């Protein structure tokens, strides 16, 4: 492993950033942050900063990619070159291509694609600052951007990771914990429907530990879900005020 492994859980049971095992990082969620996009959202989870935009349903280009019976959902997860310690080439890496696919497949169960045949719904996610948990923050932001675009959804998709560091099952790993920890389990779900739409694991866990991680990650998703709904509510209150101000 790279360099010296830092102490991840101190003798008081605190994590590198002072959190307890079941704590989320400070979460900031905002909707409707980009003027040009049909829908957009910004998520800060600790030091991870992610911006998502949705365009569509719109005419698909190139045309031959269109499907006669449903919309095509396209997703690009991309990291800004300055989002990590050593500059990342802006060309899509294999990791980014895999994550683009799993993020798309995490969002798709929430959508009614059959309602928009021959169109595309494009989701663009840019990681502006990466400190672990970027795929989960991306899903949280992208599902809000879809809702902000006014696209009908079965539920919001909330995502959060759990994992094992220094033998302790913890919630919402940051970059150091992800790198030096024993395992990382990113999970996305539609909390209102109890359905899991993204499930990955890296590292080694016993089956019992894995079940513990799944339960903890689901708890994290439910907390993030509350923040998502609150952000949408704030947005509509803002619109209401703007309309009322215009009428006067």
């Amino acid at each position, binding site marked *: *492993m*790279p*360099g010296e492994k830092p102490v991840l859980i101190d003798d008081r049971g605190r994590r590198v950033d002072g959190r307890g095992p079941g704590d989320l990082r400070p979460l900031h969620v905002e909707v409707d942050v980009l003027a040009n996009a049909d829908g957009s959202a910004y998520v800060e989870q600790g030091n991870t900063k992610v911006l998502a935009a949705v365009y569509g349903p719109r005419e698909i280009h190139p045309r031959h990619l269109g499907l006669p019976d449903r919309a095509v959902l*396209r*997703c*690009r997860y991309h990291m800004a070159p300055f989002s990590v310690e050593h500059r990342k080439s802006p060309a*899509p890496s*294999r*990791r980014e*291509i*895999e994550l*683009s*696919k*799993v993020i*798309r*497949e995490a969002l*798709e*169960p929430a959508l009614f694609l059959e309602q928009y045949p021959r169109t595309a719904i494009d989701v663009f996610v840019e990681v502006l600052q990466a400190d672990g948990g970027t795929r989960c923050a991306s899903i949280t932001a992208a599902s809000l951007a879809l809702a902000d675009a006014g696209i009908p959804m079965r539920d919001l998709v909330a995502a959060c990771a759990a994992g094992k560091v220094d033998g302790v099952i913890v919630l919402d790993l940051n970059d150091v914990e992800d790198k030096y920890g024993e*395992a990382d*389990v990113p999970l996305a779900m*539609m909390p209102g429907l*109890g*359905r*899991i*739409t*993204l*499930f*990955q*694991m*890296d*590292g*080694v*866990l*016993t*089956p019992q530990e*894995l*079940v513990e991680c*799944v339960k903890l990650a*689901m708890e994290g998703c439910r907390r993030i879900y509350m923040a998502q709904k609150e952000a949408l509510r704030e947005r509509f209150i803002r619109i209401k005020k703007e309309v009322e101000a215009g009428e006067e």
Partner: protein
Amino acid sequence: MRWMAKEPVISKMRKRHIRQLLAEGKRIDGRGKLDYREIRIEKGIIDTAEGSAMVCLGKTEVMAGVKVGLNVPYPDTPNEGILTVNAELVPLASPTFEPGPPDERAIELARVVDRGIRSSRAVDLEKLCIIPGRKAYILFIDIYVLNYDGNLVDASALASLGALMDTELFGYRVTDDGNVVLDRSVREPLELEDYPVAITVANVGGELIVDPCLDEELSMDAKITISVDKDGNICAIQKSGPGSFTVEQVMEAIDIAKEKAPELREIVLGGGHGQD
């Protein structure tokens, strides 16, 4: 998004038929829900590779080859050799595979197989280091899909493990000017520390099945691949496909993987036939 794959199509009638049959507990090819198709593994089939294996999983055919070279270790892991996994969905394997750079399916396949091998530490990468920070072995695992009939991940994980078990490392010597070069006249078997296998569980209309064939994959909601190491620990997971799972289904899939793993491992270790 250039890397998006073109999926094969299935007729709505066949899809409905597959889902209706499963609701009655039956599969389109007569298997039980937790039965794999016949598995055949043959190791050492390519003389020019340092290790190779061919896996037939029903009509799915996957070959894996290992090549060995020398390289500079990655700067963040100066004491470790390098392992890379690449997958090629070659156009002769399916009408939907097209020439060109790997698409998202190929990249996902390679990365899921990679995670299983890497997390289980099947290959002790520190043993592959020759001079820390300067010279180390690099192992290239190339997965070659020759016929596509579903469940590429399990077949590719088996083929990769088979190929690693068959791998012989070259010796090396240090030249007068301090360079390290491979000595191809010396060959030693690569020692493996673990034998991870991947088990894919598909959710088809609420029914969980293992080893989905292509028509079942085209009829499914989603699938989960779970890699299990020799001690029964989970060493990689990937949910794939556009649908979702309930929490209970996820827990059941973990149990199924635990149960099926020893069976698959036995087949690779035995190096022969398995399942009905």
